[in-house]
């Protein structure tokens, strides 16, 4: 009965489209495929595009293939031989069926009939009254066996000044089956998790009812396994696509999401390209002005908070100290000094921004506080801090050339502008490792944006950091609230020297973490030589000393510095090796590696990663007060969460990559991967509290607790 109906339909179709010659593929006296080229217009109007389609009608049970055939088969091809001036668009593929065969073979193809359409544009001038357009079509048709087929087909159309639609029902029917762009209400993003790609589709329009599927369109070099729905809830669906090609760089695929069942099926096209680089952090490439302003504001606040960071305190207190002395001076002088200090802050931040932009353009992975991962930078910092401290203790005075009475770091002299400027630079350098709570987010955003925006972000941070001083300078009356100058200031000055010694201990501990005990010892030797040099300077190179003793002292200083730099820094420090510290991996913490993360996730464990560095004080603070607290340790243990520590002290590139994935330019970063890859990793705030950690653990890994 059905066969008769089909035959009737076939002959009916033949009558309808008799104007265009059809080709039949036969095999052992059976007709398998009828092929025909059709247009959606009854005539060609010069210059006016219209649609052409290859119609394939398959015998019952036989199928031809989609653009991506799946595990077997090959896609249908259409090659046009067009006269000069004609243009042909890309082949448009209606939603295929997913057909399964024994042996876990899945293919994508079409039963019954399919119309593969293309837009065709005629030239503005056409000679003659009619046109004959030729195309060669080739396909593979399979039932249980496969037979290749092909035909040279023609489309004959008159040329006219106007035309009317033709074959409207057929074209409309297959147009409805073409994948659409993803609705604005939905978002899709790709993540790579080991050998799998994950596609997360979100949107309130995703009900839990109708069937939904993902059909991949990998390019020819990529072998993709069978996509499966990993999880599905109201408003959110996660697909998993195994990637069998051994290439970790494959981070996304083209494909279509097929929604609903036959005959009412819809599909959305998912582009790999449009979503690339968007793997975890959902920062859209186009950012609204409001969003930019919001992040610049965050940068401003972050800069302000930098002032309170522990590593900046000595310099900042000295600056405030300077204001105390200035309280009685003229308003103009105060303003000048404040502006110089601000200029120092701006100079460092803008310089840093320019350096980052240069590195970024050179293709480097750039990160916030990256300079602290360089041991020579830390060594130089240690030397500067020590010299500054000795200066505060009064071991020596620093004189600028031609201005013997102006101290480099002095703030009380008339020509203190240069001093104020360097104070600003100095305060800012010291602030770098203490990424303030807001700064990480703001910088993470800036690093994904244009160079101009990166620069603007650093300017915003500089403005935030210098805001208090600018305000004090602009309104010196507020200085009245500070205590009056007096002999106590000399004592505070010396006290600040001890603060700097504390900072020095911190810097040496960073060096120790980076290069080991030996590096710390050699650095200390160098610092000792430096101290002696400072002492010689303070004692013998004074305005009252005899010229001969001054020369001898200068030679001694140069000799001391030269030899100690050459031997302690060049030979001994330079030879120290990057140390792999295992000491931090106690208390149930284990070293992070991407492989380790994957294997723990594969075993169904929840994983918490602490991204840290020896020089990151915020990290140390979080670790001591929160992560190592009894309550948090117990909670991790009870829920069977695997604790991995990613030590970024030496800027391990694998860890840099992970940080970038989360849109972060530096540490700290805390991430919890729920067990069994059931949900997206959870990112914690940069300043941890016990309650935040316990709450998030509760919501992410409650079921583990029951085990």
């Amino acid at each position, binding site marked *: 009965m059905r066969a008769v109906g089909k035959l009737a339909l076939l002959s009916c179709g033949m009558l309808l489209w008799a104007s265009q010659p059809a080709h039949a593929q036969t095999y052992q006296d059976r007709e398998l495929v009828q092929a025909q080229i059709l247009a959606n217009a009854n005539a060609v109007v010069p210059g006016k595009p219209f649609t052409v389609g290859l119609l394939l009608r398959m015998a019952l049970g036989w199928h031809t293939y989609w653009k991506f055939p799946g595990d077997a088969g090959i896609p249908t091809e259409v090659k046009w031989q067009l006269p000069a001036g004609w243009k042909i668009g890309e082949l448009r593929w209606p939603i295929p069926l997913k057909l399964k065969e024994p042996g876990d*073979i899945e293919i994508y193809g079409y039963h019954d009939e399919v119309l593969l359409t293309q837009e065709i544009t005629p030239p503005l001038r056409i000679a003659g009254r009619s046109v004959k357009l030729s195309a060669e079509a080739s396909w593979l048709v399979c039932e249980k066996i496969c037979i290749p087929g092909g035909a040279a087909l023609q489309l004959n159309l008159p040329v006219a000044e106007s035309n009317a639609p033709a074959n409207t029902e057929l074209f409309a029917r297959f147009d409805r089956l073409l994948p659409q762009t993803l609705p604005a209400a939905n978002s899709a993003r790709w993540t790579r998790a080991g050998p799998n790609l994950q596609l997360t589709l979100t949107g309130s329009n995703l009900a839990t009812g109708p069937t939904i599927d993902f059909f991949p369109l990998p390019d020819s070099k990529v072998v993709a396994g069978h996509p499966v729905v990993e999880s599905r809830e109201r408003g959110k669906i996660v697909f998993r696509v*195994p990637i069998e090609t051994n290439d970790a760089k494959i981070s996304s695929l083209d494909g279509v999401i097929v929604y609903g069942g036959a005959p009412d099926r819809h599909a959305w096209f998912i582009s790999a390209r449009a979503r690339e680089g968007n793997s975890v952090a959902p920062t859209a490439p186009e950012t609204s002005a409001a969003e930019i302003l919001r992040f610049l504001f965050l940068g401003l606040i972050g800069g302000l908070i930098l002032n309170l960071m522990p590593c900046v305190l000595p310099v900042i207190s000295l600056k405030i100290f300077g204001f105390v002395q200035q309280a009685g001076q003229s308003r103009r002088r105060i303003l000048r000094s404040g502006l110089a200090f601000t200029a120092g802050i701006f100079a460092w931040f803008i310089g840093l921004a320019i350096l980052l932009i240069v590195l970024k353009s050179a293709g480097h992975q750039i990160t916030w506080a990256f300079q602290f991962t360089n041991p020579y930078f830390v060594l130089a910092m240690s030397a500067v801090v020590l010299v500054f401290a000795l200066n505060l203790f009064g071991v020596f005075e620093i004189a600028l050339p031609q201005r013997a009475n102006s101290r480099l770091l002095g703030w009380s002299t008339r020509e203190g502008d240069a001093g104020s400027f360097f104070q600003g630079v100095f305060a800012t350098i010291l602030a770098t490792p203490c990424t303030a709570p807001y700064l990480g987010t703001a910088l993470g955003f800036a690093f994904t944006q244009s160079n101009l925006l990166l620069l603007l972000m650093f300017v915003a941070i500089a403005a935030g950091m210098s805001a208090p001083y600018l305000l004090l300078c602009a309104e010196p009356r507020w200085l009245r609230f500070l205590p009056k100058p007096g002999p106590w200031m000399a004592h505070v000055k010396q006290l600040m020297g001890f603060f700097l010694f504390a900072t020095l201990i911190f810097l040496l501990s960073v060096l120790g973490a980076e290069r080991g005990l030996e590096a710390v010892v050699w650095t200390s030797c160098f610092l000792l030589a430096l101290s002696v040099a400072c002492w010689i300077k303070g004692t013998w190179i004074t305005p009252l000393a005899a010229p001969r003793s001054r020369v001898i002292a200068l030679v001694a200083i140069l000799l001391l510095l030269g030899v100690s730099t050459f031997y302690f820094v060049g030979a001994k420090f330079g030879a120290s090796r990057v140390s792999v510290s295992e000491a931090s991996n106690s208390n149930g913490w284990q070293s992070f590696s991407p492989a380790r993360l994957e294997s723990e996730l594969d075993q169904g464990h929840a994983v918490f990663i602490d991204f840290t560095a020896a020089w990151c004080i915020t990290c140390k603070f979080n670790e001591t007060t929160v992560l190592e607290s009894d309550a948090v340790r117990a909670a991790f243990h009870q829920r069977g969460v695997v604790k991995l520590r990613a030590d970024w002290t030496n800027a391990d590139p694998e860890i840099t990559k992970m940080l970038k994935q989360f849109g972060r330019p530096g540490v700290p970063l805390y991430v919890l991967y729920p067990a069994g890859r059931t949900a997206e990793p959870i990112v914690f705030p940069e300043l941890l509290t016990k309650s935040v950690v316990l709450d998030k653990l509760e919501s992410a890994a409650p079921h583990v607790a029951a085990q």
Partner: protein
Amino acid sequence: MKKNLILTLLATLSATALFATGSPPVGSAAPNVSVTDSKGKTHSLSEYKGKYVVLEWFNPDCPFVKKHYGSGNMQKLQQEFTAKGVVWLTIDSSAPGTEGNLTPEQANKTVADWKAHSTAFLLDADGQAGRAYGAKNTPHMFVVNPKGKVIYEGAIDSKATPNPADIPSSTNYVKAALDESMAGKPVSTPSSRPYGCSVKYGR
């Protein structure tokens, strides 16, 4: 530096170990299978340790198989490499009642008619070998090195068509893998997307 190297190694190793589905990944040990050939002899892959082994999935009714046999391309390849001591196993995993399922007699006749030069023609009607290798297509090719590691997996060549006219202009990945590996070089294309008919497994 050393730490990075170790990390990279670990990442590579785990990525390799994680491919549980599909075909055995390139670089992993070739699954050991035992299949009886058309002459009644049982072949175990493990007995060919020390030799290169080519596995070729076959279906006489498949146009893609015909492309390479009709043109003599496959026979030439078999002849060239069996002469160099390579063990070439042609495997038919078509289930009984499906296209391409052959009795031992039919298989021997096909080998004779088509002048095939493989070492043996294995009849894998239960699909045990096919499933162990995740063979999806005819032809689907695997190359195993003397250490028993898969060094190539995928299509026979670079042009996924049933048209024999495309053979001269395509790159033969199996030949390239064997030539490169025998010359002590790394295989430049260790895997590709296989093309052809589906393997006709039983339910």
